[in-house]
C-alpha cells in the first residue's frame, strides 16, 4: 500500500469534497469544518501508522515509493521517509487538525479557509516525504501560496504588507535554490535525493556556490538573522491558525532543507561555511532574545523567540556532532510543538478580547486557572526547563557546541538566560498581578482544552522520555554524519 502517497494526498481528496459542498452558508461552514477535521484526523492516524511501520533501528529511507516520470531526465515521483523527516510528517499531521479545531473565530469564508489549510497540509507533508529534487521544489514552494492567501485574506489590518513581505523574502531565496537544484541535477544526471546524498561529489569551489544558493532559501525560511524580519510581521498579521502552522511547521522547512541537501550533498562547503553559520546563530540567539524583551505585542514576542530558538538549531546542526545534529532535530520538533502551543495560547485570549497587547491583560489566573496551568507548561518548555521537551534539544546543542568552541557554547547558553527573562516577564504580566479593568475572561472551554492537551502531553513526554524521538532520529543522524565522513 502506498502509505506515504495516501498521507500526502488524502487532504487534497478532502479538498475535492469541500469544493462540492452546497447549501446555505452556515451549513456549508459547519460541514466544511467537520470535513476538514475528519480528513486531517485520518491523515494524522495514517502518519502514526507510518511512524510505527518505520523500523527505527535500521534507519535509512523506508516506505519508499518510486515511479519514474521522465526517466530520460532522471526525474521521478519518489517518496520516502527517514528518521529525520518522519517526525516532521507526524508533527505536520498533528498540527493541522488542531489548527482546524482552533478556527472557531473564523467567521468569513470558512470553506475557503479549510480548503487552504488542507492544501497547505498536502504541501507540507509532500515536502517532508519528497525524495526527488523537482518534487521537493514544487512542494517546498507550493507551501508559500496557501500561506500567502491565509495571511492576506484572514489576517489583521496590515495583512497585505505582511503577506507581500513574506512572499518577497521567500521568493528571493527560492529562485536561487531553483538554480542550485538545476545545477545539481544537470551535474549528476539524476534528481533522486537518495542517490544524490550518497553519490554527489563536486569540487569544493562549485560546492560553495551551490551551498550559498541553497542557503539563501533555507536561511530565509528558517529564518536566520538578518533575513528574519518577515517573520514577526507575518505572525502578527496572520490568523491564529496561520501563525501556528507558520511557526510549527514552516520554520522547520529551512532546517530540514539544510539537513537534507546542504550537509550530505555539499559536505566540504558546509564545513567551510560553518563558522559563518555559527556567527549568524550566535547573533540570532542574543539579538532576537533581546528584541523579544522589548515587545509589547504577545505574538511578536513569541515570533522573536522563534528566531532565537532557530538559532539553536543552526548552531547545533553545523557542529557536525551526533549530539549537536540530533539536538537540532529535537529542538525543531520541540519548537514545533511549543511555538504552536504558544500561538494557540495567545489565540485563546485574542479570541476573547481582540487585543494582542501584553498591557491589556493582567491577573488572568483569577478567572482562567486552567489556562494559567497550560500556559505555564508551554512557557516552561520554551524556557527549556529540564523535564520539558525544550530542554533536551537545547542541552544537546550546547553539548555539541562546546566541542566546537567554548565561546559558541557560551552564546548558545546565554539564550537560556534571556529566554527565561522574556518568557517569565510575559507570563508575569499576563497571568499574575492585578486584573485589568475589563470584564473578566472566561476560562478555556472543552474545545480549547482538547487542542492543548496533546501538545502539553508531548511537551512533557519528550522532556521525560526523549527516547521516543531520539531512537527514531539517531540512526539517520548517524547515517548523515557518516556520509559527511564524520
Amino acid at each position: 500500500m502506498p502509505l506515504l502517497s495516501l498521507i500526502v494526498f488524502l487532504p487534497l481528496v478532502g479538498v475535492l469534497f469541500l469544493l462540492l459542498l452546497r447549501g446555505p452558508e452556515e451549513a456549508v461552514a459547519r460541514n466544511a469544518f467537520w470535513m476538514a477535521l475528519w480528513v486531517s484526523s485520518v491523515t494524522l492516524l495514517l502518519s502514526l501508522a507510518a511512524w510505527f511501520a518505520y523500523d527505527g533501528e535500521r534507519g535509512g529511507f523506508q516506505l519508499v515509493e518510486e515511479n519514474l516520470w521522465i526517466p530520460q531526465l532522471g526525474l521521478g515521483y519518489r517518496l520516502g521517509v527517514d528518521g529525520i523527516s518522519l517526525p516532521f510528517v507526524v508533527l505536520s499531521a498533528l498540527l493541522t487538525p488542531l489548527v482546524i479545531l482552533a478556527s472557531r473565530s473564523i467567521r468569513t469564508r470558512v470553506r475557503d479557509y479549510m480548503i487552504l489549510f488542507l492544501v497547505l497540509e498536502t504541501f507540507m507533508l509532500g515536502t517532508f516525504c519528497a525524495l526527488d529534487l523537482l518534487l521537493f521544489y514544487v512542494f517546498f514552494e507550493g507551501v508559500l501560496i496557501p500561506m500567502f492567501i491565509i495571511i492576506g485574506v484572514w489576517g489583521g489590518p496590515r495583512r497585505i504588507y505582511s503577506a507581500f513581505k513574506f512572499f518577497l523574502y521567500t521568493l528571493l531565496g527560492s529562485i536561487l535554490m531553483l538554480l542550485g537544484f538545476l545545477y545539481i541535477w544537470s551535474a549528476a544526471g539524476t534528481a533522486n535525493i537518495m542517490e544524490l546524498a550518497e553519490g554527489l561529489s563536486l569540487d569544493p569551489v562549485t560546492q560553495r556556490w551551490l551551498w550559498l544558493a541553497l542557503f539563501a532559501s533555507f536561511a530565509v525560511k528558517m529564518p536566520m538573522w538578518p533575513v528574519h524580519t518577515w517573520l514577526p510581521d507575518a505572525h502578527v498579521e496572520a490568523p491564529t491558525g496561520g501563525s501556528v502552522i507558520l511557526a510549527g511547521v514552516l520554520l522547520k522547512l529551512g532546517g530540514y532543507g539544510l539537513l537534507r541537501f546542504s550537509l550530505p550533498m555539499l559536505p566540504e562547503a558546509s564545513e567551510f561555511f560553518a563558522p559563518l553559520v555559527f556567527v549568524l546563530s550566535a547573533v540570532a540567539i542574543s539579538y532576537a532574545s533581546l528584541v523579544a524583551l522589548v515587545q509589547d505585542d504577545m505574538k511578536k514576542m513569541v515570533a522573536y523567540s522563534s528566531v532565537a530558538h532557530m538559532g539553536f538549531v543552526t548552531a547545533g546542526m553545523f557542529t557536525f556532532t551526533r549530539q549537536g545534529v540530533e539536538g537540532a532535530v529535537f529542538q525543531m520538533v520541540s519548537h514545533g510543538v511549543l511555538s504552536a502551543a504558544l500561538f494557540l495560547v495567545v489565540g485563546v485570549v485574542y479570541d476573547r478580547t481582540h487585543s494582542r497587547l501584553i498591557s491589556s491583560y493582567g491577573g488572568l489566573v483569577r478567572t482562567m486557572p486552567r489556562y494559567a496551568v497550560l500556559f505555564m507548561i508551554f512557557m516552561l518548555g520554551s524556557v527549556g526547563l529540564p523535564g520539558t521537551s525544550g530542554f533536551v534539544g537545547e542541552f544537546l546543542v550546547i553539548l555539541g557546541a562546546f566541542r566546537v568552541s567554548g565561546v559558541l557554547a557560551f552564546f548558545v547558553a546565554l539564550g537560556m538566560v534571556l529566554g527565561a527573562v522574556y518568557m517569565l516577564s510575559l507570563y508575569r504580566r499576563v497571568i499574575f498581578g492585578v486584573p485589568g479593568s475589563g470584564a473578566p475572561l472566561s476560562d478555556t472551554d472543552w474545545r480549547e482544552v482538547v487542542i492543548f492537551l496533546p501538545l502539553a502531553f508531548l511537551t512533557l513526554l519528550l522532556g521525560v522520555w526523549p527516547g521516543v524521538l531520539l531512537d527514531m532520529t539517531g540512526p539517520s543522524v548517524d547515517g548523515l554524519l557518516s556520509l559527511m565522513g564524520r
Partner: protein
Amino acid sequence: MLASLIVLLPLVGSLLAGILATRGGIRAFTSAEHDTHNPRDTRAFRGRDIFAAAVTTVPMILSALLSCFLYLTLGDAVIHETLFTWIRSGALEVSWAVYVDRLTAVMFCVVTLVSAAVHVYSLGYMRGDRSLPRFMCYLSLFTFFMLSLVSADNFLQMFFGWEGVGLCSYLLIGYWHERGAANAAAVKAFVVNRVGDVGFALGIAGVFALFGTIEFRAVLGEAGEHTAATWNLLGFDVPALTAICLLLFVGAMGKSAQLGLHTWLPDAMEGPTPVSALIHAATMVTAGVFMVCRLSPMFELSAFALGVVAITGALTAIFAGTVALVQNDIKRIIAYSTCSQLGYMFFAAGVSAYGAAIFHLTTHAFFKALLFLGAGAVITALHHRQDIRAMGGLAHALPLSCAALWLGSLALMGVGIPGLTLGLAGFFSKDAILEAGWAAGGFTGWLVYVLGLAAAVLTAFYSLRLLFVVFHLPQDAAAAASARAEEEAAHADTDTHEHDAHDEHDDIREPSRWMLYPLGFLSIGAIFAGAYLHHDFVGEHAAEFWHGALSYAHDPLAAAHGHIPFWVKLSPVAMGVVGAIAAVLLYFVMPARRAALTTKFARAHRFLMHKWYFDEIYNLVFVRNTWRAGGLFFRGGDKGTIDRFGPDGASLAASQWGKCLRILQSGYLYHYALAMLAGLVLLMGWMLIQARF
C-alpha cells in the same frame, strides 16, 4: 527499592494534591473566588484542604522515617538503582537513577526531616489560605526535585533537580501572585539562578567534552588522568579541569547565593515563611555546597578552583554578615545570615574540609529552619508584620516563639564550651570549619580563617540585635511609625489592608499546635545534632565514615588532628562573646551611643542599608542596558536597517523606478514615433560609424 520510594513518595503526594488543586472547580489553583485582598483569612479547613494536607504530609513523614532508617542501616554500602534511560544520543547516555551513598543518605535525612517539619508547620501557617492544595503540591514537588538532585548518579539528573527546585522556588516565592513585589522577586530568583545555571550547563558540556561521559563515578574516577588537559579559550591555554570546576562553581554560586549572585535571596523572602525555611535556608540553597562536596575528588585536582571557592565563601560570609547588622525586616536579617553561613560552608569546602562543610550544612538546616519558623510564628502573631522596629517587648506575649528564636540564635552563634565538647549544634560545626581554615594554613587558609572569625563576631551581634529588638526592648514609637509608613508604601500597589485592623498588640497569641510541634522537633535538632554527629562527620575516623563519598585526600582536619592548639578551639566562641558584648553594650547599657554611631558613620550605615549597592549597580549595568539593547536592536536594527534597506527599500525602489518608467508610457502616438525615430537614427549612426572603421 527503598531509596526510590523515598524519592518518589513526595512526588506522589504532590501529584495528588495537584490534581486536587486543579479539580474541585479548579478554583483552588487560584484565589479566584476570594473577594477580599487578604489571602489568609483564618477560616477553618475545608474538606479538600484536609485531604490535600493528608496526601502530602503523610507521604512526606513516611519518606522522612524511611530516610532515617536508610541512614542508620546503610553502613558502608552504596545503593544504585537505575530506573530507566533518560537521554541517549551517541556516546551520551543519561539515566534516571537513585544513587545513595553516605553523603546522599545524610542529605536525604536533612531534606526529608526539615521538609516534613515544614509540611506540618504549613498546615498551621497557611490555615485558611484559599489555595492550600496548591501550596502543598508545590512543597512536595520541591522535595521531590531536591531528593532527585541529591540522589543523582550523573550531572544531568542533578541539573534536572537543580532547575526543578529553582522552578518550585519561583512558584513559591510568587505564591501570593497578586503582590507585585512577590512576582518581581520570583522572576528575579529564577533569572539570577539561570545565570548560574548557564555556568553549570557549560560545565556539564565541558565534562562531556573531556571525559566522554557525565556519570559521576566514571568522571570522578578518571579525573586524575586529565589533570594535564588544556583547552584553548580565546587564545589562552586554560587547564580543562580548572575551567570545568569554575564553571560548575558558578552554578553553585547562583543556587547558594554567593557573593555576586546572591541578590535574589533576600528578595525571595516575599514568599510565605515556611518556604523561606525549607527552600531558602535549609535545603535548596545548600545544593551548591552539596555539589562541590559531591564532586570533591574533581575539585581536589584544581588548587586554583578550590582557592576561588574558599575566598568566595569567606567574602560572602563577611559581606552578608555586615549587611545583616543593619537590616530591619526580620526575614531579611535571617536571609542574610543564611547567605553568610553558606559562605562558611563554601570556605570549608574550599580548604578541602568537605566533612566540615556537610556537617555545617546539616546543623545549619536545623537551626536555621528553627529560626525561620520561629520568625514565622512571630509574624503570624503580628498579622504579617515583618519590620522589627514595629515589634518590641514581645517576650511576655510570645514566650514559646521567643524561646525558639533564642535557641536557634544561640545555635547559630555557636554557643558551647570548648574542651568539654558540650554545646549547641552550631558550636561543633562552626568550630570544625574554623579549625579547618587554621589547619589548612597558607595564604588562603589564613585569609579565610581571619574572615571567618570576623564573621563570627557579626553573627553574634546581628542575632542578638534581632532578639533584643523583637523581644526584650520596648517598642521605639518613632521607629515603629516610620516602619509602618514604609511598609504601607511598599504594599500600596497591592492595596493590602490586612494590617490596619490589627495595629495593637492586644490580640497577639502563640501559634497553633501545628506550628509548635515542628518548632519543638527542630529545637531537638538544633540542640543535639552537633553533639550527635560530630564524631562521625569530622572526627578522627571521618574518612572511614564517609567511605569515599567525600574526598579525604587533603583534609586539613585529619592532617592536624590532635595538634590544634587550644586558642584555636577557643577563638570562635571568644569571637561570639565579643559580638555579644558589643550587642549588649549598644542595646542595653548605652543605647544612646547607637544613634551617635549611626550618625557618625552615616555613610557606612547607608552603604550597609543599601546592601553594598549590589542591586543598584546591577540594575544600572545589566538590567537597564539589556532593555536598552533590546530597544536599540528592534528600532535601529530590525526597523531602521534591515527593513529599511531590505524589503521596504526594495519595494520602494521598485515603485520609484516604476514611476520613472511610467513617464515614458504616455500613450501619445507622436511620443512613440519620436522615440522610434530617435532609435532609428542612433542605430543607423552606429552602423555607419562601424562601417567607417
